[in-house]
């Protein structure tokens, strides 16, 4: 049975050492300038958002995966993504400072994600069309791991690139983060929305 690999990017965790996979898995690696992640939230005064263009990590496909003959169903893939917290910035430095403190950035410098399961829902209607997936994975923020599910879109770019995008909502408190409050001024809302776009490029894995 053909297995289909699906990669998607959201927030991924780096799992380098443990990913001693089978030979011939095809790896797509993060490229500088190819990523954008946005975290949007609310407060009693105004909405806020922080962004970063630095997303590191990679996506790997099972060698059996074929883009042209993909079929809906479970997919074999590995995804590891990492986002340095201090690169997430708004245009207000003081708000960023409060955020890094709430996320305990000094001890937990990265947001990590690792994929646990992927399912292809829809194949593309045209060669440049999107693959639609459902994904489940582990998101690690401020040292706390939570399972998150997220729909992801993947499109092929040129011969060797894959672009991923998706979004999900999480609660700060589920990661042990107290929504920051500036006493007497504003308090932030618990719900935040994560949105990402990620371009990865195929690299040949060295022979094992």
């Amino acid at each position, binding site marked *: 049975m053909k297995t289909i690999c699906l990669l998607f990017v959201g927030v991924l965790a780096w799992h380098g050492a443990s990913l001693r996979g089978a030979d011939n898995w095809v790896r797509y690696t*993060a*490229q*500088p*300038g190819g990523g954008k992640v946005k975290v949007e939230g609310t407060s*009693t*005064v*105004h*909405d806020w958002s922080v962004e970063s*263009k*630095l997303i*590191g990590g990679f996506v790997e496909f099972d060698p059996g995966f074929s883009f042209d003959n993909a079929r809906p169903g479970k997919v074999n893939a590995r995804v590891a993504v*990492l986002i*340095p917290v*201090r*690169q997430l*910035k708004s*245009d*207000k*430095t*003081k*708000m*960023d*400072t*409060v955020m*890094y*403190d709430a996320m305990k950035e000094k001890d937990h410098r990265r947001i990590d994600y690792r994929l646990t399961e992927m399912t292809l829902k829809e194949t593309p209607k045209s060669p440049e069309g999107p693959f639609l997936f459902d994904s489940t994975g582990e998101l690690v923020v401020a040292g706390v791991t939570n399972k998150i599910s997220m729909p992801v879109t993947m499109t092929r770019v040129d011969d060797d690139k894959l672009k991923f995008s998706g979004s999900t909502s999480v609660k700060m408190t589920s990661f042990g983060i107290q929504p920051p409050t*500036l*006493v*007497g*001024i*504003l308090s932030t809302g618990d719900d935040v929305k994560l949105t990402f776009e990620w371009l990865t490029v195929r690299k040949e894995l060295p022979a094992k």
Partner: protein
Amino acid sequence: MNSNETAELNRRDFLKGGSFATLMTVLGGVELIGRSPAHAADVETLVPFQVKCGVIGLGTWGREIIATLSRLKTAQVAAICDTYPASVKRARNSAPTAKDFDDYRKMLEDKEVQAVIVATPTHQHREIAIAALQAGKHVYCEAPLANNIEDARAIALAGKAANKQVFQAGLQMRADSQRRFLLDFIRAGASGKAVMAHAQWHKKQSWRMTSPNPDRERELNWRLSKDTSLGLVGEIGIHQIDAMSWFLNGRPTSVTGFGSIMQWKDGRDVADTVEAVFEYPGGARLTFESTLANSFDADYEILYGTDAAIMMRGNKAWMFKEVDSPLLGWEVYARKDQFYKETGIALIANATKLTNLTEKATDEASYTTKPLYYALESFLTNVNAVGSAVEDFTANFGTGDKSALEKYLSEVKLQPTANYQEGFEATVLAIKASEAVAKGSKLALPKEWFELA
């Protein structure tokens, strides 16, 4: 945000007074008169990062820099350096845990030191600043950058080439958010059309320092010799003249200078009383006066406009409106200070709040609101932004793709400060003004002289 929430916000800060100031700070606003710590919100107590700094040159200004850094929680003075042991000992009082060096090269070898502040006599900047940049350190180089154009150009070009590092020129007013607030105010037309400007720096003092050691005494008195010093107009006036050029939005096209030794006839060849007139493209002229023979009225800058004159003293400013200028509205309730027959409207955020009416016009600025404080604070913030961007980028993508790193760095938002270009231009102006003063003549300033490349 719906209109109910806006109304909530306005009512809440009207009642709470001080917290609005904090909100303004948090949302990027600025105050001209520093607030006491009692008004600060919790956000002020967070220490987001720390930069390990080294200070090279521990004279009066070097020690002032160390004292200011010790009040910045994002700074850690990790190293101090001077060729003169007594200076090191004296500086150590403000930086008890710093490593001390007598050779700046040894300090540059220390991997712990991330940023270096060069506060030596002007003619020694070049060698040290360039070596520091080549050693991979972030550099804050005091102004004027050098006492001759060739050295100034070398330093500025080195700063430009070091694009993975921060290079900031010591024109502290350019980094002062309070001055930026004034700049917007003036550019918005609050003073009308600028017709004239004036700046002065008066302080009765000799500048001569003594030392039991004759070699050391010669070194200490670098300001009194025309071979090493740019005099009052170049070493001191550079800040005020550059600030006025900034406000007048142009570079002078000529400078006429006069200078003489009126009081301190002790063998020096640098004037102790100077005047300089700068012509600007719009037609306005700036007159600069400075003397070591009289202290009246210390230092200030005034911009004379058709609607109002704006006077700036350190971190305080006042607006003196003309009788026929349009009413802005808020000035009716603003705090006012009397200067003989003139009524100055204090230009501070929340000028109409009751709390401000009790502050005195002559209250001394504390360390935490002087331009040097803001300049160093911005320097450290930029060092952290650039340094962490380089670190995180290379950790993820390696060092192979240099142009990708450059692109990433070009998008990092930095605090506004004086960069290599502004530092170079101000230094050229200081050098030429000093020449004009020494000759007692007019010098044209073609714009090619201010071009770096």
